[in-house]
């Protein structure tokens, strides 16, 4: 019996079992709590602790010109330099300031101030290139600086051609968001969608691949392919710069070229513009100087106003009285409604009394009795006031609306201005009379160009647009511009008739300054007064000089509007004189560039310029024969037997009876002459002046169709040293027809 378990032993076993049951219960309870009650929360906490999400940045789309290959805007990753001043050792601070200032091209004192800050983080310079980053890394290595300088990956938008197309392209902000121009208009399409990569990290923060890894790829932004052609844009920008310099234009200028059949904008230039790479700097140095001279408390507002002004796209955001350019619309309305025909006559007595009122409105000249065609060519205001009256407010406004002047054109650029106009009910006789010749209502240049395109293309109002199509990152087209027309405003017959009249206007009327031999240009000049500015500053007159036209007349392809805001009235302010030569130069370059065939009339063929044959390297005897065979005159300079150089060079244009100067020895090639002043002269006087100076001239503009024209501009400045025989291009305008 003594070998069996005793009662005491049983008690002990029971106590032990109770303890074990309690312990097990605690374990089970905790297990339930951890797994079931708090399970989800703890699981989430564990995942949060081990998983690290990383944003996969979407690349901003690229902007191309119409060729689809020329990059106008593109993004690339760059670096932002920041400091953690608190982690920089005291002994390193001077060297960090010195070296960073050197590498980042900053003032050492400025960097030292940042380095000495008692903060954990401060920016030094944003968006620096990889080359700079490498230099900073080298510097850190060289001086053994391991903490305190941070290089943070960032994105930068590049605009490789600087201010080329600046106001059209716009610019982006520090977070790569579009702030202006196309960058703003198409921001959501260009931005794309950021992706996300979620991975597990181990205790030291390294990736644990393939565990919980979830990847949502970033969708890069769409690329934009514009309708704008880099070449045409270049011609427009160059032409505007030249015009601004020639006429001391105070408030900038714009030029828009459009495909009349599709509404595709081929070029859109605005001056003064800015460099989208550096949009926050005032591009106009003169304006900056004026601001610097202001009291400090006024500078901020002045800077803001100057920046807003330079970012403004004048072709879209500025409104103006179109002036006589609008007469092509009034004329079309009258032709369409059979109120007038080409032969209808009207007598202009200089002053016109608006019927039913005692108000007299003057014409810029006295034209006497004239046909409708002559009225257009004379840009006769009374004739058009008369047409307005004949149309009446209701019919006039119907066409005004149909031409699209009461709504925004809907061009795909931001900031399009609303037009200001009188409705049919508001058009009392005086308002109707003034609107008939393009005054008293405000539209944007793009409105006027769209209306001109409608006059040219058979009466169809097209949708102006800048983006031709959008591509995804795989090159698939995801959007194409709608090139269908909005409505037909006038009939094809009216369009053809008006085109012929405008062609005549550019050949022998007030728009002769835009004439181009062989291209059958149609055009209309416009000069509008800025009444508001005149009231604000009565010390001088403020004008807008414009020229709007299209070509070729037999199959219109391109419409072009040139607009100069406030040319110096002391030089000239008429559309024909100020904007005409720029129109002629740009339109000629555009049509040449597009390969449009010239069709010369017999009269034009007689005046057409010829090109210099190649004689350099030939013996003098052979060269003389070649030149004479081409119908040109020869002048030989030097005593050599071989032609070392020729002026004009091979392929350069010169008049049919021009001279080629052959240089036969090295001494003769060093001879130069000075270009004389060729402005303000008649054709014969300009010719004589050129001959006296040992150069020759090539004429453009009104001189080709009129004998009373005077020279307006010359492409080589007075006083420039050139070789004898050099050809200077001189543009002529008709002094009596400059409205």
């Amino acid at each position: 019996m003594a070998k069996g378990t005793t009662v005491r032993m049983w008690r002990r076993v029971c106590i032990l079992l109770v303890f074990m049951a309690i312990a097990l219960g605690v374990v089970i309870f905790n297990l339930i709590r951890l797994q079931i009650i708090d399970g989800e929360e703890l699981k989430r906490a564990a995942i949060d602790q081990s998983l690290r999400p990383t944003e996969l940045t979407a690349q901003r789309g690229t902007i191309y010109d119409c060729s689809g290959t020329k990059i106008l805007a593109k993004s690339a990753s760059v670096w932002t330099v920041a400091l953690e001043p608190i982690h920089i050792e005291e002994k390193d601070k001077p060297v960090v300031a010195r070296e960073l200032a050197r590498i980042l091209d900053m003032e050492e004192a400025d960097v030292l101030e940042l380095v000495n800050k008692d903060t954990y983080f401060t920016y030094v310079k944003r968006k620096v290139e990889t080359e700079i980053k490498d230099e900073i890394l080298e510097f850190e290595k060289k001086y053994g600086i391991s903490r305190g300088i941070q290089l943070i990956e960032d994105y930068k938008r590049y605009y490789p051609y600087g201010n080329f197309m600046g106001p059209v392209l716009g610019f982006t902000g520090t977070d790569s968001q579009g702030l202006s121009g196309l960058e703003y208009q198409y921001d959501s399409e260009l931005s794309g969608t950021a992706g996300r990569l979620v991975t597990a990290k181990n205790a030291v923060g390294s990736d644990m691949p393939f565990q919980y890894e979830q990847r949502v790829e970033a969708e890069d932004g769409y690329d934009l392919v514009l309708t704008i052609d880099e070449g045409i844009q270049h011609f427009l920008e160059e032409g505007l710069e030249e015009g601004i310099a020639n006429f001391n234009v105070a408030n900038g200028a714009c030029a828009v070229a459009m495909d009349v059949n599709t509404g595709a904008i081929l070029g859109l230039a605005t001056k003064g513009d800015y460099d989208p790479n550096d949009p926050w700097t005032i591009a106009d140095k003169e304006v900056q100087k004026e601001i610097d001279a202001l009291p400090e408390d006024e500078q901020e507002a002045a800077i803001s106003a100057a920046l807003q002004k330079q970012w403004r796209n004048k072709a879209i955001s500025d409104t103006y009285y179109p002036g006589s350019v609008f007469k092509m619309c009034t004329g079309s309305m009258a032709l369409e409604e059979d109120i007038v025909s080409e032969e209808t006559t009207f007598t202009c007595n200089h002053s016109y009394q608006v019927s039913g009122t005692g108000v007299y409105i003057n014409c810029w000249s006295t034209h006497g009795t004239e046909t409708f065609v002559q009225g257009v060519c004379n840009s006769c205001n009374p004739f058009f006031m008369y047409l307005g009256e004949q149309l009446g407010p209701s019919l006039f406004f119907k066409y005004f609306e149909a031409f699209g002047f009461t709504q925004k054109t809907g061009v795909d650029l931001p900031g399009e201005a609303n037009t200001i106009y009188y409705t049919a009910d508001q058009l009392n006789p005086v308002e109707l009379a003034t609107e008939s010749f393009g005054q008293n209502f405000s539209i944007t240049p793009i409105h006027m160009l769209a209306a001109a395109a409608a006059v040219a293309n058979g009466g169809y109002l097209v949708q102006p647009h800048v983006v031709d199509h959008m591509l995804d990152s795989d090159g698939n087209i995801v959007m194409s511009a709608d090139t269908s027309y909005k409505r037909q405003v006038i009939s094809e017959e009216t369009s053809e008739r008006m085109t012929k009249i405008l062609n005549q206007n550019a050949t022998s009327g007030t728009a002769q300054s835009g004439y181009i031999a062989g291209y059958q240009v149609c055009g209309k000049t416009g000069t509008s007064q800025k009444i508001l500015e005149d009231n604000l500053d009565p010390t001088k007159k403020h004008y807008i000089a414009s020229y709007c036209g299209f070509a070729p007349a037999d199959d219109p392809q391109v419409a072009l509007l040139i607009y100069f805001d406030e040319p110096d009235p002391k030089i000239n302010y008429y559309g024909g004189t100020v904007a005409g030569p720029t129109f002629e130069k740009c339109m000629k370059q555009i049509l040449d560039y597009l390969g449009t065939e010239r069709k010369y009339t017999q009269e034009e063929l007689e005046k057409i310029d010829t090109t210099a044959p190649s004689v350099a390297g030939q013996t003098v005897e052979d060269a003389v024969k070649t030149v004479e065979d081409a119908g040109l005159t020869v002048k030989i300079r030097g005593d050599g037997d071989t032609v070392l150089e020729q002026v004009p060079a091979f392929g350069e244009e010169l008049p049919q009876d021009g001279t080629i100067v052959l240089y036969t020895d090295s001494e003769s090639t060093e001879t130069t002459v000075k270009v004389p002043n060729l402005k303000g002269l008649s054709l014969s006087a300009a010719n004589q002046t050129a001959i006296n100076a040992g150069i020759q001239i090539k004429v453009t503009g009104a001189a080709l169709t009129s004998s009373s024209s005077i020279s307006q501009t010359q492409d080589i400045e007075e006083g420039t040293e050139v070789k004898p025989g050099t050809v200077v291009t001189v543009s002529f305008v008709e002094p009596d027809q400059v409205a």
Partner: protein
Amino acid sequence: MALRNRTEAYDLSLFDTRPLTVEVGGLPKEKPSPKKQRRNNVIELPQKELDQNRRKHPFSLKAAAVMATMVLMLTIVGSIVLNQVQLNELTTQIAAAQTQLAEQESVHTQLQMEANANMTLSDVEEYAKEYLDMSKIGKSQVTYITLTQGDQGNVVQSSGGESLLDQILSFLQGLLS
């Protein structure tokens, strides 16, 4: 007392059932020791079996299987670990290469933009004129052909008609097309 030298509190063996046999002479017969009993239990194996047992045993199959399983397990575990290490290493390398690629692409874009900035149309035009003696395309480089009303194009057609077979073939081709 003999009990003082014992470790047990009680000598329970005293209560065991004893054999009733008593040796003559009054003294109990000496109890045979257990060792001797076990020795007596030894089983004598036959010589043949003894010889067999004496022979050297070959490595047993069971042990080999266990060993092989263990080696296999170790190999699998080892290769998993090794693969994981390699995978991590390669992933790190790929990530580094991708970063480098992205950086180089950015450098490419930066340089491309810099190059483009030096190739504006104005610069190209100036260089072409000044250094390459080039000129813009002009009418002298374009040859226009004038077609007068007298110019005509003749389309040559075969004079003979199609044979019956050709007509059937054409008809069938027309149906099939």
